[in-house]
């Protein structure tokens, strides 16, 4: 194994987990760049539908829908699934549990290459006749089942289905690798209840991947059969498309797809955001120099969110034609999931507020800023959850911009903030260097302001009744046309938000070569990915963990640090924390 403090060159076909983690992050960086550009084209088209744009020209409405579909698919699968779970877990999970590597290194590497190969297949849909599919990332049949139902629903739709089927297999294998590693490769003493909360969240998210992506894969194959093998799982009898009565055998139900898809689709949200919750808890402990209060409760809420996440999918289907009694059942499970989520927020607020007469000294590093941003966005996006969980209110707000605001704040933005927090925090492990704090702070504040300015006003468009997926506002409905100024403002904000990301790219590229050399354990963290070189060199069988992951505040709090900002040259009068491998009583 190479020296962990040194930069690991990206050997392309490496089976080393850290190289694979970096590769996953690069994959999601490519996907997020494309997905963001697509969203900017959408935003401009929405407010100026007849404007000719460079390269793409004047877009017809179906091209707008193709952009919507590809934007959602790229972001949800290739960014929000790939980076927080596969990317970060490969980067640090084995070290965090004291393992020397993944349980199945080759399977793990294969999982990455399978996942990565799904991306060109998806993007190829732009190049084929008819273009990319237009049925949105949820691809409800019969629109997604019948090639005659719209442009993009022929070969483009097939490529979408094949791409996601490949992605399912890759994610599934990667999750199995993570699960086995967590359960069987922990070093002695690394009991389950001593694992960092990041590991707990990857454990729960991996279980969700194994369950949810299996069902999605089945649904994708069934839809492919409906398209090419003459089955009718999702297509009812008596279809009339474009005035032509279809001669198809069988009488299927589109609602079956909705159930299968959302059985995957809702856990997917937690796959994207659970790792961010674990990371936020860890970062708050690290940068307030305090242990996580009620660690068992945080484990419990992580598991509860995972379990409840499997039984709330019907809240996407209140107006779908599902039985109204089922609507009530799913409303109650959805309200229930708000409880462990709220408990997590209170835990974070408690950590920040500190005990009586003992206010923590918060180290405002860039990863900490993004963790705080995560909390803010999680609260703001989360609080509209209890509204959308109610079938009665959803029967007004469903598929309006209110929902777009909700999931972009809580999943897209909170998820992205957790990715940024992780990248700034773990960058030294990839490159051996620190990222620029100055650029990082600018990046944070512009992104934070841009995220709110872009997505918060969408609540108002939703309350006004504006549906999603509309290529333009001008039409027969004057109440929609009146929302144009609001949407113009959102487009301007989206440009600021996207533009701010160039700061991140510059920081990434610059710091890779010119960043300050990272000291050993630059954040003075207690978890094992920051362990000393001598520990890293210890053979796996002689490693031992003696304590929980958040051994901060071990000594006199008054003597923690002299300098809390220049963490790189952090002068610690006396270490205020204990690494997990430090024995309770040092031998004399």
């Amino acid at each position, binding site marked *: 194994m190479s020296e962990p403090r040194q930069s690991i060159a990206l050997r392309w076909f490496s089976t080393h987990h850290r190289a694979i983690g970096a590769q996953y992050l690069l994959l999601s960086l490519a996907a997020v760049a494309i997905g963001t550009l697509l969203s900017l084209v959408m935003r401009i088209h929405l407010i100026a539908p007849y404007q000719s744009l460079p390269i793409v020209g004047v877009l017809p409405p179906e091209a707008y829908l193709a952009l919507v579909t590809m934007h959602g698919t790229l972001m949800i699968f290739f960014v929000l699934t790939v980076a927080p779970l596969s990317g970060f877990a490969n980067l640090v999970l084995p070290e965090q549990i004291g393992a020397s590597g993944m349980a199945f290194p080759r399977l793990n590497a294969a999982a990455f290459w399978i996942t990565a190969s799904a991306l060109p297949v998806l993007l190829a849909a732009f190049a084929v006749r008819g273009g990319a599919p237009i049925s949105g990332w949820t691809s409800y049949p019969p629109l997604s089942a019948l090639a005659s139902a719209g442009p993009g629903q022929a070969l483009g739709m097939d490529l979408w289905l094949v791409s996601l089927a490949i992605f399912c297999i890759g994610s599934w294998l990667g999750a199995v690798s993570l699960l086995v590693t967590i359960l069987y490769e922990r070093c002695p003493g690394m009991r389950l209840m001593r694992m960092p909360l990041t590991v707990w969240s990857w454990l729960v998210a991996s279980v969700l991947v194994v369950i949810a992506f299996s069902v999605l894969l089945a649904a994708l194959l069934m839809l492919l059969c409906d398209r090419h093998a003459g089955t009718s799982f999702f297509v009812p009898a008596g279809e009339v498309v474009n005035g032509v009565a279809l001669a198809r055998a069988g009488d299927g139900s589109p609602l079956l797809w909705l159930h299968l898809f959302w059985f995957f689709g809702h856990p997917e949200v937690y796959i994207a955001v659970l790792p961010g919750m674990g990371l936020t808890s860890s970062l708050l402990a690290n940068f307030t120099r305090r242990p996580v209060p009620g660690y068992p409760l945080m484990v419990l809420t992580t598991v509860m969110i995972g379990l409840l996440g499997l039984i709330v999918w019907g809240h996407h289907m209140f107006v779908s*034609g599902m039985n109204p009694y089922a609507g009530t059942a799913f409303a109650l499970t959805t309200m229930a999931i708000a409880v462990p989520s709220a*408990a997590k927020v209170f835990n974070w607020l408690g950590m920040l507020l500190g005990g009586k007469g003992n*206010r923590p000294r918060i180290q405002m590093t860039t990863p900490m800023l993004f963790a705080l941003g995560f909390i803010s966005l999680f609260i703001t996006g989360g609080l509209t959850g209890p509204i959308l969980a109610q079938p*009665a209110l959803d029967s007004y707000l469903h598929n309006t911009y209110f929902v777009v605001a909700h999931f972009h704040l809580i999943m897209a933005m909170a998820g992205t903030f957790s990715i940024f927090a992780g990248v700034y925090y773990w960058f030294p492990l990839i490159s051996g260097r620190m990222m620029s704090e100055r650029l990082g702070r600018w990046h944070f504040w512009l992104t934070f302001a841009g995220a709110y300015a872009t997505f918060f006003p969408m609540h108002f468009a939703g309350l006004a009744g504006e549906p999603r997926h509309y290529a333009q506002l001008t039409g027969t409905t004057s109440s929609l046309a009146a929302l144009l100024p609001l949407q113009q403002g959102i487009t301007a904000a989206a440009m600021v938000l996207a533009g701010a990301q160039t700061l991140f790219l510059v920081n990434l590229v610059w710091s890779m070569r010119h960043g300050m050399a990272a000291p050993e354990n630059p954040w003075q963290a207690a978890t094992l990915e920051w362990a000393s070189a001598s520990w890293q060199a210890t053979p796996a069988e002689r490693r031992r963990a003696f304590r929980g992951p958040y051994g901060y505040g071990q000594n006199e709090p008054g003597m923690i640090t002299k300098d809390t900002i220049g963490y790189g040259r952090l002068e610690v009068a006396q270490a205020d924390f204990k690494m997990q491998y430090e024995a309770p009583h040092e031998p004399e």
Partner: protein
Amino acid sequence: MNRSLWLPPNGSLHGVMLDRLLVWNLAALSAMLVLAHLLLIWAVVRKARPANIAPGSTKTGRSSLLPSFASSELIPTFLCCLLFAAMAVTSERLWAALRFEGPQPEAMQVEVVGQQFQWYFRYPGADARFGLTRPRLVNAAAGNPLGLDQNDPAAHDDIVSSVLLLPAGREVDLRLRALDVIHGFFLPGMRLKQNAVPGLELHVHFTPVTTGTYPILCTQVCGSGHGRMQAVLRVVPTEQFAAWIAARERKLERPE
């Protein structure tokens, strides 16, 4: 009050209740949003004041590092449980009133049919029965967009319209169908949304009370023309509605 919340004017009986529910929910959750952010900002901007504990003391008192479990965790979570429970109960009572029971027997029957990218509305006529439709007979160019089978006597007096005209004050039972793909039938002014799904006949009932014109939108992406799949609901006084139906029936009896 509604105007400040961006909501379009409500014209339905149940919309009053729904708006009231939405408003107090938004108010309660906005208050929580503000409160949580005030705490967050306060935690970040105030001066740190770590407790000064004598060096060498073994009793650093971990409890003093952190707020008490009860005050930071149990009590707020319990209060949230109460709020969410109150929301769930009030909301599910409304939902039950709206959807658990069918319409009154005297409710007016109207069929809504979605197809790319048009809404059609069918009234059963004097016999109060919808005639048979057959997919093979669908021919919009020949004036039969729904495929009415004229061999069925019940189909003779069926009125097919591209405008939804309803009398104010009478409950209406909509029967939703779709010919090709899933469409989302959305009446913002009536606070009503229900998908129209091919292969299913779905019912939803409501009572329009305020006369006026209300947009009908499609809220389930249905193809390239999804955004222009718009129609209009006109709620008119009962006499005007009766006159409109009578005129349409006369037209059916003596075409051209």
